[in-house]
């Protein structure tokens, strides 16, 4: 049995006393590339944000390799939704990627040459080195997403959480991103992705969690990605043909 990278116990999260996640139990084994799928308002982003301590749950707990998240920050990288930030912010692509190093620096300490070098390497990995000095509003949607990915890569984490990394990117970027995610899995990392496009689940991921306020199912894609679970999650008769 593989080690459990992320464990969620009895997690309940509410906005204004209305639960958006209800009693979630979830174990994510190390080294999987997992999609979290579910309809709008199912609490997919909320689940990630609660695991990362950005939202405070009203009940339940989360552990990363058997310890609370606060003690394991260094092991975790986070890619928020692209739309959650102001891309007119006065800064460059390189500077945004450098932000990924801030966590290991801690309060007050400034990034130095070592951090800059790491950021440049991450930019190269996502094919964005040529754009390092570009103001971020001058980048296309796909390029902005690559910058976000590079910012997570620079953290050199063990677990990556990504909130809809394929939102509004072109096909080339989508392929580039998924290839990087597959490489991460090959290197033994755990990657958890909020995902919308059900068609690509079997092709991209090896693990899947169905979520709709409650957890519907979680497990290997080949075992549980079926019409039954899709119908339970989306409420209507859902048919997705799985390519063998």
């Amino acid at each position, binding site marked *: 049995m593989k080690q459990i990278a992320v464990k969620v116990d009895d997690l309940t999260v509410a906005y204004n006393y209305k639960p958006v996640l209800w009693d979630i139990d979830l174990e994510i084994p190390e080294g999987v590339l997992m999609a979290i799928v579910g309809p709008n308002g199912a609490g997919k982003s909320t689940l990630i944000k609660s695991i*990362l301590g950005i939202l405070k749950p009203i009940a339940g707990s989360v552990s990363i390799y058997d310890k609370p998240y606060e003690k394991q920050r260094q092991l975790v990288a986070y890619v928020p939704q692209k739309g959650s930030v102001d891309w007119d912010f006065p800064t460059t692509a390189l500077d945004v990627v450098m932000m990924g190093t801030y966590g290991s620096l801690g309060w007050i300490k400034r990034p130095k040459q070592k951090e800059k070098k790491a950021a440049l390497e991450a930019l190269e990995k996502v094919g964005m080195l040529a754009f390092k000095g570009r103001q971020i509003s001058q980048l296309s949607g796909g390029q902005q997403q690559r910058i976000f990915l590079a910012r997570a890569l620079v953290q050199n984490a063990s677990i990556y959480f990504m909130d809809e990394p394929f939102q509004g990117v072109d096909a080339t970027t989508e392929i580039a991103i998924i290839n990087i995610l597959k490489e991460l899995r090959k290197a033994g990392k755990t990657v958890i992705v909020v995902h919308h496009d059900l068609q690509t689940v079997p092709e991209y991921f090896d693990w899947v969690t169905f979520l709709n306020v409650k957890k519907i199912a979680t497990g290997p894609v080949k075992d549980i990605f079926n019409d039954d679970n899709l119908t339970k999650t989306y409420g209507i008769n859902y048919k997705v043909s799985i390519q063998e």
Partner: protein
Amino acid sequence: MNSAQIEIQLIASLVAIACAIPGTFLVLRKMAMISDAISHSILPGIVIGFFITHNLNSPLLILFAAFTGIITVILVEYIQKTGLVKEDTAIGLVFPALFSIGVILIAKNANDVHLDVDAVLLGELAFAPFDRLLISGIDVGPKALWIIGIILLITISLLIAFFKELKISTFDAGLAASLGFSPAIIHYGLMSVASVTTVGAFDAVGAILVVALMIAPAATAYLLTTDLKKMLSLAIGFGVLSAISGYWFAHWLDASIAGSITTMLGLIFLLVYLFAPSKGVIAVLYREKQQRTEVSLLTFLLHLKNHNEEEERHVNHLREHINWQKVRAKTVLELALKNNMIVIDENIVSLTKKGNTFTSKAIDYIITNEDTQIEDMKDDFFLFRG
């Protein structure tokens, strides 16, 4: 210049710098209105602080008033969190309430002292040099200069220490939280600095000008740069420039210094708004015109590329065929010629090798949106600048 004039300009400049620093982050966080709220709602804090300390320059009064500023922020957020009203409505509910408490307190209790609503709102920089700080009988300068100097020193130290934290929590609060930089701590830290600065500056320049000095220089700088550090320096520069030019404008008009400084802030913003190199109104209009021409050029080149027949490439036919006005057709033709993209031989237009490659690349870019290969083209053509 006499020493009073120098002192007034020095105070105004220090206030401008102290305001521009938190102001830059307020503008980037889209919280400009909160500075307006703070500047008004500190009034009851000042009045109550004055009743306790009987001294308008007491550090205790400054802290007390700044605390009212923080309460404003907390109240606004609390009302907003109920989800019943939006942030701007919450601000509009909170600060008039607190401000009016201050107005009533002054009217009921402070008729006989130097504390009136006009003084709080407008300040009077011209009187600042008269209020001296004496240390064991020695005159060390105007009190206002010392107060704002100390506040500025604290602000700059905090900015240098927490620049990275301010940047990340302003740009991406979610990431900041996940990395362990509590956005709440940074938020209230910034609000405290804004409140203390407002209180420290109101006596010299008044509550309204404090708002102008926080927001206008930062908004002006925002139009000119894409780098946070440069934005801070530019905001500081614009603040000081307005402070000094405003002083001399007031001197010349024999009018309120605070009013003149604010006028200068407005004028500088207007100039930059019109003439800023990339975000200014004129630059934007020019760019749009250029883009129209470039799209026309591309349409024209593509037509040439798609047609080998000579009759399709005859100068006169082109005008009919693409359905352009004479002037426009001429502009496009000249632009293409100037860039060596076409040759005209006996009124038959042909693409040059350069024109041919350019067209393929450009069309490729528009279709795939893959722009690594055409980086060099971007400098010549606005169209491809994202």
